[in-house]
């Protein structure tokens, strides 16, 4: 029972983290009524997970060999894309709240494509969803020792409930933070989640033979093993791997540097005066900060 609890908690952790953040975000900008977009995205993710799980049990041959890998990699990179977008919004808001809060938030909301928020919920749930569905289906359909199967299933359900409680805690915790702090903390968090996903995606492509296989750069499994619960949490939060390959480290580092400079570069630059060679004295350089975008 405890084993299935941990597996389910581990699979649901990332989805819970993302759902907690996006629900908190909408609540924070006073747009809690848009939460239905998040709920709809998460519900679509659950349905798609069930469909994918069912498809896997019917498929065979090359479709079964490669299909789940291709879908899995596509979902990972889609998630990296929408999370990057979300981080950009958060940074935009963090800057906006320094000035006239409400007007800017209204402008930002008009420019927002809320389906991106729905997509975050969808990818967050769907990414590990099909595996979780098959995992739980396996326990229900296990023939023979019925008692154990049901207690195992109970463990898995409790694991998902614990993840949901975590999402709730993030949502409630976010309410206590001041608005600028909330945006800064969550946008930094999303940046690392996306960096971890990017490295995971690159690792998958290497395993599929699309990218070269590189050897592990270091081994910290003696300290935090990524199969354990702490390692899994760190994996979901910042992309921790006990034995990262050089390609994964390069992917993670490049993402953090490029996205960090793009989204947080202004924090480094603030004390200095802007260079005179910057084109357009007033126009914001970031495409996402256009109010009419």
């Amino acid at each position, binding site marked *: 029972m405890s084993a299935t609890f941990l597996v389910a908690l581990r699979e649901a952790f990332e989805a819970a983290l993302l759902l907690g953040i996006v629900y908190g975000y909408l609540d924070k900008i006073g747009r809690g009524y848009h939460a239905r977009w998040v709920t709809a995205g998460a519900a679509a993710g659950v349905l798609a997970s069930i469909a994918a799980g069912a498809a896997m049990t019917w498929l*065979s041959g090359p479709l*079964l060999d490669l299909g789940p890998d291709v879908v899995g990699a596509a979902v990972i990179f889609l998630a990296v894309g929408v999370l990057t977008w979300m981080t950009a919004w958060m940074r935009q808001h963090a800057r906006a709240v320094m000035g006239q809060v409400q007007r800017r938030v209204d402008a930002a909301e008009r420019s927002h494509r809320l389906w991106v928020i729905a997509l975050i919920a969808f990818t967050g749930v769907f990414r590990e969803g099909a*595996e979780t569905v*098959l995992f739980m289906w396996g326990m229900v359909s*296990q023939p023979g020792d019925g008692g154990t199967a049901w207690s195992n299933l109970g463990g898995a359900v409790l694991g998902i409930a614990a993840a949901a409680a975590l999402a709730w805690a993030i949502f409630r915790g976010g309410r206590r933070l001041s608005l600028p702090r909330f945006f800064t903390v969550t946008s930094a968090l999303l940046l690392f989640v996306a960096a971890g996903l990017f490295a995971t995606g690159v690792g998958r492509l290497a395993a599929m*033979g699309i990218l070269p*296989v590189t*050897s592990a750069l270091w081994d910290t499994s003696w300290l935090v093993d990524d199969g354990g619960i702490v390692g899994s949490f760190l994996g979901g939060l910042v992309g921790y791997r006990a034995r990262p390959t050089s390609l994964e480290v390069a992917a993670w580092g490049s993402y953090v540097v490029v996205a960090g*400079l793009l989204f947080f570069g202004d924090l480094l630059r603030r004390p200095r005066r802007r260079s005179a060679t910057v084109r357009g004295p007033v126009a914001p*350089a970031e495409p996402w900060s256009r109010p009419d975008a």
Partner: protein
Amino acid sequence: MRRLVAFLGVAVILGLGGAAGATAADKPVEIALTIENNRFSPEEIKVKAGAPFVLVITNKDKTPEEFESKELRIEKVVPGGKTLRVRMPSLKPGTYPFIGDYHQQTAKGRIVAE
């Protein structure tokens, strides 16, 4: 600054793309791996180091199992009663453990490359 960022981004993408061309495609050997009663058989697979191979995994149980090697970044769900083929990369000499993620207490094995 922004140009530098754009340049870095393009450089990374080109680097990843260029590296992608360097994979060999000889006919790899096939090695059978069976899952039965939530255990792998054989539990130790010996392979030649430096040569890619294909694992042909058959799940004889009714329940699904997930073949997972954390080290090799491979996670493959094998539904009950199904057989699937997993392309494995060429390995350096060493031992690479794998587990059945859904039955971690019993389903354990390792690939030994030498």
